[in-house]
């Protein structure tokens, strides 16, 4: 079927399948699932090696390295979510997907919020040596 060829194994409603809530490689034949895991492993190994290489090479402009590392890490987390945890935006995945979005929102709020607040606090603080002088 054209439609199935398009979405391949991400389609949980293939003609011979019962309605399920899962996506790439979660269902289907062992072969399809094996392919999903192989792709996931290859991609994540590639991204890991790229991370370690870019952290230790001097070929990349220094201040750009943290940004590159962040991009590689987010890409790898995405690969893990799709190929290993089988999360997708398929209609049946709405619950899982919304929960994930909320989780990412909370984690982002905590991490960036803390960093922002603490950076501001450091900025506003009286330096420690001045503080001890004032207390005398």
């Amino acid at each position, binding site marked *: 079927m054209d439609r199935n060829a398009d979405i391949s194994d991400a389609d949980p*409603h293939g003609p011979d399948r*019962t*309605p*399920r*809530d*899962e996506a790439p490689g979660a269902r289907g034949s*062992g072969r399809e*699932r*094996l392919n999903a*895991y*192989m792709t*996931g*492993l290859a991609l*994540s*190994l590639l991204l*890991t090696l790229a*991370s*370690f290489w870019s*952290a*230790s090479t001097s070929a990349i402009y220094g201040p750009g390295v*943290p940004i590159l*590392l*962040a991009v*590689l*890490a987010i890409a*790898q*987390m995405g690969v*893990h*979510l799709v190929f*290993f*945890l089988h999360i997708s935006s398929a*209609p*049946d995945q*709405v*619950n*899982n997907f919304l*929960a*994930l979005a*909320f*989780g990412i929102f*909370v*984690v982002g709020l*905590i*991490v960036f*919020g*803390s*960093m922002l607040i*603490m950076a501001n606090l450091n900025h506003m603080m009286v330096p420690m040596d001045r503080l001890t002088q004032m207390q005398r």
Partner: protein
Amino acid sequence: MTVAATPIEEIPLSLRGPAPTRVLVGYGFWLFLLSDIIIFGVFFAAYAVLSGETAGGPGGPQLFERGRVLIETGCLLASSFTCGMMAIAATRRARGTTFFWALVTMALGATFLSLETIEFARMAASGAVPQRSAFLSSFFTLVGTHGLHVTTGLVWLGVMIAQIATLGFSAAVQRRLLCFTLFWHALDIVWVGVFTIVYLGAH
């Protein structure tokens, strides 16, 4: 009947009736995993804020060995893959193959854990203990919590092997295996954050 002929995707989600238990269990466990990831998010925030506060003690670049971390990462990635192979074998109800991949997963997890323990022991021997500085406190809390999760995963996998051996591939055992694979893959995602922020981000 026209009702039976309606394709499932044309029936609204709310009218499809109760979801299969497998889907409900997966969703519930996914919510737990997300809350676990939020715990790690808090530890990541603490580490990000405190990573510079070494109080004159040793800092990241002196303590971390990237070669070891790369091997640890390789172990975890490979174990995620073998865990997937185990899940495929479990669906086929192939007992021997499932045991084989479960044991490979266990061996890789144990290798990761022993490498991490050696690293911690070496750091402690050189005086880099959690009490030394805020940086080391947040480091041991973050990486130690991940290690604790891996340890729990290994125990869980041992229990699952015992359950397959005694109960066979019953529906309940299959659901527990699904939860285990989700747990194991989620640990890998957390580790991606750990090696990027803690080990590669050390400057």
